[in-house]
């Protein structure tokens, strides 16, 4: 899974071509839909759409460059004045595509894998660190719940948000409660011998055939795209000064299509 996520993120960040970014995004959505189901993905998808939309809007309103003017605002308006162009919209959309694809490529680690599965995959020398991280992740939901509880309780004591300083009456108790919770968890870990020396593992993770297939497909995708970048087959794309369609070459596209491997592997398993 790590190999697949890393390859997706490498392709998305190394190319400026929106065609290949879109292919990676579709592969990530398909893989998550197969592994997790669209219902469980709703929260992540909503967040990703909002973040990507913000990136598009930000570039559209701030970059007054490009040949195809859609409309203009008076130049006297600070920051917002000037021509609003199709090129700026397209460039912002490419940025949003990058963010969305990168987030969804990393999403399997929270949606598909339990924290202990990720920690179990770490080498033995990092076993103690992995246990500490797994324990910390268990505290994250408690921090969110604590924020809600503290806000409600303080509101009933007369607290109202009146500027940044007033938020200290919320943030301070939330932070203190979280620190105390982590101390109590650390106490529990120490009371069970944590830190007493080398550790064994109840379930040493063995790499299965499906894992090798996914690693192989991801490795091949990585290599093919890297070569495509070096030889110029994966042509870059730039929105400015005037919009042109991105060039698509078969070789880097094959690399992106290899990222659909999880869909095939998991479907054949079920």
């Amino acid at each position, binding site marked *: 899974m790590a190999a697949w996520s890393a390859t997706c993120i490498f392709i998305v960040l190394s190319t400026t071509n929106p065609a290949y970014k879109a292919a990676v995004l579709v592969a990530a959505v398909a893989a998550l839909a197969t592994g997790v189901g669209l219902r469980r993905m709703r929260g992540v998808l909503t967040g990703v759409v909002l973040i990507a939309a913000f990136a598009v809007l930000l570039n559209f309103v701030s970059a007054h460059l490009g040949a195809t003017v859609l409309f203009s605002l008076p130049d006297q308006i600070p920051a917002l004045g000037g021509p609003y162009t199709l090129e700026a919209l397209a460039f912002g959309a490419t940025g949003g595509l990058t963010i969305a694809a990168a987030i969804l490529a990393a999403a399997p680690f929270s949606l598909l894998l*339990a*924290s202990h599965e990720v920690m179990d995959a770490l080498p033995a020398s990092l076993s103690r660190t992995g*246990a500490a991280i797994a324990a910390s992740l*268990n505290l994250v939901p408690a921090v969110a719940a604590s924020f809600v509880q503290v806000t409600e309780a*303080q509101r009933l004591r007369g607290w109202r948000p009146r500027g940044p300083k007033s938020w200290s009456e919320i943030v301070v108790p*939330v932070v203190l409660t979280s620190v105390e919770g982590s101390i109590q*968890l650390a106490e*529990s870990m120490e009371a069970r011998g944590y830190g007493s020396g080398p550790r064994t593992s*109840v379930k040493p993770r063995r790499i299965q055939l499906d894992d090798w297939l996914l690693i192989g497909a991801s490795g091949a995708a990585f290599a093919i795209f890297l070569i495509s970048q070096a030889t110029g087959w994966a042509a870059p794309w730039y929105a400015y000064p005037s919009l042109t369609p991105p060039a698509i070459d078969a070789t880097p596209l094959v690399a992106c299509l290899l990222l659909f491997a999880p869909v095939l592997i998991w479907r054949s398993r079920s």
Partner: protein
Amino acid sequence: MVAGPSGGGKSTLLRVFNGLVPHFHGGRISGNATVGGLDIIATPTRDLARHVGFVFQDPELQTVYNMVDREIAFGLENLALPQREMASRIEEALHAAEALHLLGRTVRTLSGGERQRVALASALAMRPRLVLLDEPTSLLDPEGAGSVLSALMGMVERGTHAVVSEHRLEPILPRAQAMLHLEGGVVVEVDPKTWSAQPPAPPIARQSAIGAEAWSLAKVCAGFGSHVVLDGVDLAGAAGEVVALSGPNGGGKTTLLRLIAGTLAPLSGAVGRRPGRIAYLPQNPAALLHRPTVRSEVTFTIVRAGERESPEAILEALGLMSVADRYPRDLSSGERQRAALAAVLPGAPSVVLLDEPTRGMDSGARARLVSLVAGLRDRGAAVVLATHDAELRSALADRTVNVGGGRALEQPREAVLL
């Protein structure tokens, strides 16, 4: 058994047994102590862990992993037990904790009592000779508490020693072979056969009649996402009346309090409440403590509420004068509970909502709380208590409502005493 008033040193004493005091918490220590032939000052906690297990008070703050078998294996991994021996040890520990049916479950889906039994199994998996339990049932409903105490008794019968600190002594007192009473750091050995609990706080006769309706729920549905906690609930409370909510953890008592407080909107139906300040003690009251002293917590609320009351009145009423100038988060769990009560109750709130107010409290503190709440009741406050504490209900409640399975079922109104 270890008993005594809150803040007396019970938790500190238990932590000496496995070296958390002084190795984890620091501080000053003198004298000597041995457990299983090991000097606790010379031996680190992580080495003592092979001989002494510990079950803490809060079931939600002891979990490293989210799978039951993985969680129990945590201690075995720390001991570098060979992987081939772990499966049998995990099953052995779950059987000893009367929790074998929880194998393969996700910890987050377990009840409080089930989580505490998993915590007990996690300790037993390491085959300690002694297990320490620091108020293991104080955050549990009666059913959960009963299951944990049953597992504890079974463990003792099979030969593992236990040292238990509890305020609710009656269930295990008959089985105790020795008892220590701890107050102000001084330990006195007591014969458990002759020790008798303080009598429960008697009901305080009311000084005023029950008044007009102060809050109401009409056909209220409430929940989170697709999970409905309360379904079509009709309930109301009056000024000068104490309504007690009983029922299992997760049954909807806290949800009902939040609806009355106005911090949770219903999915459908209507919630009404009279004007005036609402005093609300949340389920984790320490969460709202952030001022440098207990006194300043009380003053904070008085000033914000526009009241003129002196903080000493409520500090005195809750027995907090001796700790008034201390940092609230440095107090024991029972003292912290009282500090949180002092922080929300001063002045003249029109509605008082208390979620498990006697958690971690000894009988003396409970009696003070009964007196304080009775005073608020007599001054016309509408009081709603969510509590497992049967003594508190019998001392204060005019009505008891059982909340669970989406319903809120009232019991008959008791006679009003003048």
